[in-house]
């Protein structure tokens, strides 16, 4: 009898096309070169902390692959009609890893901690107060409607941390328990060896019945991408998220037991661009910036430099976002137009064909996104009479110092959208964010009050269609005025062993979201 049933189950599974059996248990080995400083995403953003952090800490909601919010720690939620309050109804019986119940007080504490310490101030900026009428209800009161709020309460951003551990008065940014966490998510920390590995064990008392499927996740930190890719190729590693090297992607594609997908990076939204210092004598003229944009062949960057694995970026919002506006001016390659614009701007070609020379900053360690693109731009811009001198920075902090002090003319840069434009897009364009010494602020010194007004309105618009329209207008103006020449999206891919791994993380947050449904064979 038992055998027959097993056969029936197997047959059903074959019919439904499930290649990997969804048996519980097992260990997933995940590899990354990103080394987290610590494991508390409430006070530390970034991929490195988010991958383990979202396993250890749950969030009120999570998002599926189509940008739909799903219940997680909150069973349900509702915005008030005027959009000035959000009520979260928390799951009953949920506990932290140390057995303490998760209450609305912890939710309030977490949001306040994030608001005060997290680098993305716009996430909970409009949250004025959090009421906790009972243990399972939290009401976030806003100073203005804030449509990005649910995203800010989702994976990688709005983690719920226990007040009885992190609320002891110590600075949360340097809290000793950030590396020895007590969390609320599907996995708990078993071992953290900085820069080496993180071992996460199944949380037996996880609030979602039947999850997580895995017994254990091992996150191995690699120092060298080539070694890491070879380890994936040889089967030492089961999953490799945030793979961006096109040769590495191509190599792993050839392995029949490995699946390589670009799903799961819609929220992080990474864009590679060429930034202008719009305060610079030459680049303050919009015509010069447009000329540079017209002189760049993005097809060449995407197809030749990135072997077709990246896609062209045409504006400030990543194509994976619901607010991406297709059909804005895309600066198709036009060298004549570029030359004409430069003539018009008062930079005639000299006897040697050179109109002016500028310096381009980049970080050679970003070989494909920055180094090869910068090396391509040099002869390419020469075609329209712009002599580019490349200035390599030895490492990230050297480059960051230079660019954040506005001591640059042109620079390569990679910036993430971080889910909602309010979090990752506005910061690059609004006049109020032109600051000295802060990297990934408005280091271009671009300022247009109309753009400011549009972005401000879009950030407060609850109606999705109206919001999209506002962002469309803003994107149009930004692209016309080119404070940045948008080049390409980063070709982030996730490689996984398809004979072993079931339910790979393909939601908008990819591996920066709970891996509770992932199985291994």
């Amino acid at each position, binding site marked *: 009898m038992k055998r027959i049933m097993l056969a029936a189950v197997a047959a059903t599974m074959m019919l439904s096309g499930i290649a990997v059996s969804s048996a519980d248990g097992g260990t997933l080995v995940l590899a990354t070169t990103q080394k987290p*400083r610590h494991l508390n995403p409430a006070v530390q953003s970034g991929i490195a902390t988010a991958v383990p952090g979202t396993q250890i800490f749950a969030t009120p909601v999570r998002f599926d692959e189509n940008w739909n919010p799903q219940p997680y720690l909150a069973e349900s939620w509702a915005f008030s009609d005027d959009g000035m309050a959000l009520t979260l109804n928390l799951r009953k019986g949920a506990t932290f890893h140390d057995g303490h119940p998760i209450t609305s007080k912890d939710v309030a504490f977490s949001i306040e901690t994030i608001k005060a310490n997290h680098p993305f101030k716009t996430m909970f900026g409009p949250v004025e107060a959090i009421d906790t009428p009972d243990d399972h209800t939290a009401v976030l009161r806003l100073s203005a409607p804030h449509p990005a709020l649910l995203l800010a309460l989702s994976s990688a951003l709005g983690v719920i941390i226990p007040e009885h551990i992190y609320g002891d008065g110590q600075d949360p940014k340097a809290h000793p328990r950030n590396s020895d966490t007590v969390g609320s998510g599907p996995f708990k920390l078993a071992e953290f060896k900085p820069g080496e590995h993180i071992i996460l064990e199944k949380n037996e008392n996880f609030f979602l019945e039947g999850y997580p499927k895995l017994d254990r996740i091992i996150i191995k930190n690699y120092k060298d991408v080539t070694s890491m890719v*070879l380890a994936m190729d040889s089967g030492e590693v089961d999953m490799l998220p945030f793979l961006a090297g096109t040769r590495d992607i191509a190599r792993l594609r050839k392995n029949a037991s490995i699946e390589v997908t670009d799903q799961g990076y819609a929220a992080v939204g990474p864009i590679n661009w060429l930034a202008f210092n719009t305060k610079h004598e030459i680049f303050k003229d919009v015509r010069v910036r447009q000329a540079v944009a017209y002189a760049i062949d993005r097809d060449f960057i995407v197809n030749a430099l990135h072997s077709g694995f990246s896609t062209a970026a045409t504006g400030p919002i990543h194509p994976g976002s619901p607010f991406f506006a297709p059909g804005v001016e895309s600066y198709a390659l036009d060298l004549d137009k570029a030359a004409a614009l430069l003539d018009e701007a008062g930079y005639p070609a000299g006897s040697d064909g050179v109109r002016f020379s500028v310096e381009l900053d980049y970080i050679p360690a970003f070989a494909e996104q920055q180094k090869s693109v910068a090396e391509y731009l040099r002869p390419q811009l020469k075609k329209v009479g712009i002599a580019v001198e490349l200035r390599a920075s030895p490492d990230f902090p050297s480059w960051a110092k230079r660019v954040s002090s506005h001591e640059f003319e042109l620079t390569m840069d990679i910036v993430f959208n971080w889910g909602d434009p309010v979090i990752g897009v506005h910061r690059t364009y609004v006049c109020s964010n032109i*600051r000295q010494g802060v990297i990934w602020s408005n280091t271009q010194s671009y300022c247009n009050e109309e753009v400011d007004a549009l972005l401000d309105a879009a950030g407060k618009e609850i109606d999705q269609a109206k919001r999209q329209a506002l962002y469309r207008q803003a994107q149009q103006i930004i692209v016309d005025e080119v404070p940045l020449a948008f080049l390409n999206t980063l070709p982030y891919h996730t490689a996984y062993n398809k004979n072993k791994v079931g339910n790979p993380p393909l939601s908008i947050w990819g591996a920066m979201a709970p891996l509770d449904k992932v199985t291994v064979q």
Partner: protein
Amino acid sequence: MSLIWLIGKRLLYAVALITAVLVLNFSLLHLAPGDPADVIAGEMGGATAELLAEIRALYGLDKPFLVQLGMYLQRAYQGDLGMSFYYNLPVVDLILQRLPATILLVFTALIFATVGGTVLGVLAARKPGGFTSSMVTLLSLVGYAAPIFWTGLMLIILFGVVIPFFPISGLYNVAKMATGLSWVVDIAHHLVLPSFTLGVVYLALYSRLTRASMLEVMQTDYVRTARAKGAHERTVYLRHALRNAILPVVTMAGLQFGSLISGAVLVETVFNWPGLGTLVFESVIARDYPTVLGVLFFSATLVIAANLVTDLVYRMIDPRIRLRD
């Protein structure tokens, strides 16, 4: 008496040397553009000016350079290497976590290089111009000329991917959760490729050195005397010739201990070996001053200790040095 004097003198040197290492590197690191707050902001995907100021205040980075240096040295002399800016953990903990892996790697490579190099050198010296000699010469030239990271990557492709015989990354297989003897075996298995990669350059050098030195010693009068008195050929080789011929190898091994540690940075990176080499490299990029200085403190100590050991080994091998004191 002379031995104690020797060690005492070396300790005095050591304190001065380590102070110099710390001051020099502290200054060099501060000359590099950008500070840990920039790195942390980069890691976080952006930050506000207020947050950057808070981070700088948290780690005392807002104080003048000399004040920071003074505070660091004062604490260091009391045995407190401080907290890592990057990991927010005590530097000593980070280092002690990584130190065993580096020591294991470097010493295995060193033993492999000296023993292997000596054996190959002696073999090559027996018949200069013969087949063995030519092969040793060829191999040592290739081994010496190939860059360490290239050798490592080639070995990974050959023995990790093409013929998957050795594990290619890490100190042990974390996923296996092995304990006891099987854990030791696992580590030994993981150790093969990295220690071979690191050792092969030095093995090449030492085999050449031993060969040249053996050839020279074999011409000397005392070897002729030994042979004349009817000593067995093996005794002549090992007792009379090798004992003298090995001195340059010991000298070089002692001198090169420092470069062996720096070579370990590359090998550790390629093989994902959780050692000090990669820790210092990562910490320089992260401008994590306390960790960099802590690692330099430990490796300077290691080099000084290695030089001391070299001297002692010298005294064991060469009685003339003992007699001179």
